[in-house]
């Protein structure tokens, strides 16, 4: 028996483990106790009109069935669980948390569980950290308890990704705090030196100066360590990078101040510490934003099957994906994602390779056929012999992504590197020249002071912050809007975009089928739909879902179907009161001995001409009707295409589907060019053909088959609901399944580039004004102390405008 799925009375999502509640004397089903409580409150306050006002309740996508993880399996425990004396600890990623109430529910609900010692739930990272006594309970019970609360726990290994990021976060925070403390202390000490008419005894001024030296030395040294390391690695490659320029300025300032302390000249300790503090603060924020972006990316990637059912001694057993070896037999049940690459040993099934081939309809696979990991066995069970196992677990993918983003230098960043290199060199040259000239016209000690002043005042602070500040703030803004910039290079390349290539299925369309046309040959439309919906009732397939949805919408009473049978990749058979019925492809009907009438053939050709997928309905050896199905266009697809074209961008629609379907969608959208029946490996070629030094090509896609094209494009943009591989190949990810974010991402990147240009001009103006002053010996410590932070603040302030502007 198949359980009927009743939507939750409050939120309208599917209820897997429904809870009952009494609302206004009637028994209702809820998906979780949170919804029940909210609903009870709404009704007790007389606020029922809320349900009318919020409109369509079907807001969320259908909740995914929580995959069963072998929580108590040895391999699993070794990988995810930390033993800690008497207790065990685990971090789980928890799906389905939306608000603080969810956090509350999990924390309180789990705390009541016996054996639980500690529960910590973080809404920001969507993670739960559990500590428990293994003698009293086991992890699988705890996971079940979380599932019963209405959330889905996923195993998650913190050591791989989170801990290094956390450690770096703490380290940066520590260095920043030390620099801040040093700034505070040296400023206190500098204040009387600058501003008071110093009337103390001879020794006290010296005391303040030496104290400043004493405090600034260890704090600066600790704060500057990572910068020195970066500068050193740059020097080994014979360049002066940003770190090098910063180190040059900082060291120059420091030694000038030490010289000043010894000889009774000017000191710049407070400028030095504040400069370091600002640089570190910038890096800390940059790191925090990057962490946010990657934890969001990681959440998108978690849904891939992480376990496999391996047949050992004839019995299927759930094991972690990592434990699957090449040559193992893996059982895949209907509707499940195939966890490995392999060859089918037993069973036939329609396999949905939409992610790999772009073909939205399942392909029939038989023993001996090859199947690829992460394709879905739609309507049959398979036994697959593994030929390729996931060497690349998702976490490794994400880590690779981070490393890429870290190491990847965008053209613009490289240009800045060249500028800083040049800048560093010229500062040294200018300082040396001023020393030479001044030693000729004045005494050597004046010459040293002026050379040092040049080094001090040209602190490249503003230059160092110009790009990171703008990029980081743009990324923050993007996260808020639902745009993840996984790579700063994307922000830089996007404004110049000339060509946009959109994938059809899942990108400009929702990927959900919709019944567009009913053609009955006998009886009414309603009778045809009733028959079709009854047959498809128990079948999970995009086409079946579309037909069922329309049946439900029209409130049809479905007759009982007996002898229900799925013919893999072709359709469904069954006996209804009216007779023996079938729905599916032309081949299915042919196999049932049903020939198409000329009328049916003509109608089906008409439907195909319109770009629809056709389902044939047969009853007692006769074709009684046709259904035409369409993949719905996204609401904002047309608007987005128009907006792009209005900006002079050439828009191409790319599709693996047949010509009619692609042209139908393309014409509805009004794109400039339509490419249909493009094979997956050709998609990359299409992008390559478009690419040209004068062009910037953006590819937007969602499927595994789009991944090479996404990587090939100047900027690859993935849909957040897309497949993992597409997300890891892309530089920008649009969350929330809204294509309209594309235009926002463009706007944001334009704003960012403008702010970066302004920042560079600001820092150039600063240096152009101050270097001559220093060269002519007009820079005093007080002047440096005021002007240096001012230049950084100007850059930061200008960048902050990015977050203020409503895009």
């Amino acid at each position: 028996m198949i359980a009927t799925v009743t939507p939750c009375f409050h939120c309208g999502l599917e209820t897997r483990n429904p809870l009952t509640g009494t609302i206004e004397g009637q028994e209702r089903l809820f998906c979780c106790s949170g919804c029940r409580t909210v609903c009870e409150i709404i009704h007790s306050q007389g606020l029922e009109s809320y349900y009318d006002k919020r409109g369509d309740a079907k807001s969320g996508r259908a909740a995914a069935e929580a995959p069963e993880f072998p929580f108590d399996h040895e391999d699993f425990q070794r990988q995810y669980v930390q033993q800690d004396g008497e207790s065990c600890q685990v971090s789980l990623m928890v799906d389905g948390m939306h608000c603080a109430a969810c956090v509350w529910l999990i924390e309180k609900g789990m705390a009541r569980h016996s054996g639980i010692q500690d529960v910590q739930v973080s809404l920001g990272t969507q993670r739960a950290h559990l500590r428990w006594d293994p003698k009293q309970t086991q992890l699988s019970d705890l996971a079940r308890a979380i599932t019963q609360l209405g959330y889905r726990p996923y195993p998650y290994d913190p050591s791989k990704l989170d801990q290094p990021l956390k450690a770096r976060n703490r380290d940066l925070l520590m260095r920043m705090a030390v620099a801040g403390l040093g700034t505070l202390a040296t400023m206190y000490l500098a204040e009387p030196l600058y501003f008071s008419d110093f009337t103390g005894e001879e020794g006290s001024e010296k005391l303040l100066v030496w104290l400043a030296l004493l405090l600034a030395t260890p704090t600066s040294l600790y704060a500057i360590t990572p910068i020195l390391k970066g500068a050193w690695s740059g020097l080994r490659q014979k360049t002066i990078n940003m770190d090098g320029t910063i180190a040059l300025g900082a060291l120059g300032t420091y030694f000038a101040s030490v010289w000043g302390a010894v000889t009774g000249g000017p000191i710049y300790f407070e400028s030095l510490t504040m400069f370091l503090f600002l640089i570190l603060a910038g890096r800390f924020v940059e790191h925090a934003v990057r962490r946010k972006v990657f934890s969001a990316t990681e959440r998108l990637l978690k849904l891939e099957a992480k376990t496999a059912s391996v047949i050992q001694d004839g019995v299927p057993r759930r094991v972690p994906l990592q434990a699957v070896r090449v040559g193992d037999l893996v059982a895949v049940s209907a509707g499940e994602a195939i966890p490995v690459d392999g060859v089918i040993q037993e069973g036939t099934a329609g396999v949905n390779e939409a992610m790999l081939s772009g073909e939205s309809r399942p392909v029939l696979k038989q023993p001996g056929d090859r199947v690829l990991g992460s394709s879905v066995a739609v309507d049959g069970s398979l036994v697959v012999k593994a030929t390729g196992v996931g060497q690349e677990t998702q976490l490794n993918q994400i880590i690779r992504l981070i490393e890429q983003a870290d190491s990847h230098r965008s053209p613009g960043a490289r240009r800045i590197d060249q500028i800083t290199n040049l800048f560093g060199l010229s500062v040294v040259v200018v300082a040396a020249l001023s020393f030479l000239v001044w030693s000729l016209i004045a005494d050597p000690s004046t010459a040293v002071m002026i050379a040092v002043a040049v080094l001090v005042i040209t602190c490249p602070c503003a230059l160092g912050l110009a790009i990171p500040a703008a990029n980081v703030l743009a990324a923050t803004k993007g996260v808020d809007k639902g745009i993840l910039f996984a790579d700063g290079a994307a922000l830089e390349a996007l404004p110049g975009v000339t060509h946009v290539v959109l994938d059809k299925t899942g990108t400009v369309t929702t990927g959900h089928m919709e019944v567009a046309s009913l053609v009955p040959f006998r009886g009414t439309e309603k009778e045809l739909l009733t028959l079709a919906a009854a047959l498809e009732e128990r079948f999970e397939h995009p086409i079946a879902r579309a037909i069922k949805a329309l049946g439900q919408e029209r409130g049809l009473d479905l007759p009982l179907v007996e002898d229900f049978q799925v013919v893999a990749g072709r359709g469904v058979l069954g006996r209804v009161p009216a007779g023996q019925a079938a729905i599916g492809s032309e081949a299915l009907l042919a196999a049932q001995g049903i020939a198409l009438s000329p009328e049916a053939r003509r109608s089906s050709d008409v439907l195909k001409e319109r770009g629809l997928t056709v389902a044939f309905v047969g009853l007692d050896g006769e074709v009684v009707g046709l259904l035409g199905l369409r993949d719905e266009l996204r609401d904002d697809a047309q608007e987005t295409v128009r907006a792009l074209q209005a900006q002079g961008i050439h828009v191409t629609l790319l599709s693996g589907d047949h010509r009619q379907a692609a042209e139908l969608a393309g014409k509805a959208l009004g794109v400039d060019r339509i490419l249909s029946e493009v094979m997956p490996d050709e998609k990359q070629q299409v992008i390559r053909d478009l690419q040209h030094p004068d062009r910037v090509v953006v590819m937007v896609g969602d499927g595994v088959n789009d991944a090479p094209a996404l990587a090939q494009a100047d900027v690859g943009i993935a849909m957040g609901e897309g497949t993992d591989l597409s997300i890891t190949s892309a530089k920008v990810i649009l969350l929330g399944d809204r294509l309209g974010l594309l235009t926002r991402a463009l706007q944001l990147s334009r704003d960012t580039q403008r702010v970066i240009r302004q920042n560079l001009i600001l820092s150039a103006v600063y240096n152009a004004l101050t270097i001559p002053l220093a060269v002519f010996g007009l820079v005093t410590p007080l002047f440096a102390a005021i002007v240096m932070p001012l230049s950084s603040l100007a850059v930061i302030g200008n960048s902050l405008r990015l977050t203020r502007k409503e895009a």
Partner: protein
Amino acid sequence: MDILLIMIPGCIVLALIMFGFFIWANKSGQFEDLEGAKYRILYDDEPQR
């Protein structure tokens, strides 16, 4: 002048104490989840049993 000899060491000691607190807070992970903390005040405490 003498007051400086008292005040400056005093300030440094105070600063070091504050810094010690900061190290403790950082090590114990108080800066890890800056989002969730603001919601935590809204939860009722578990009634004492």
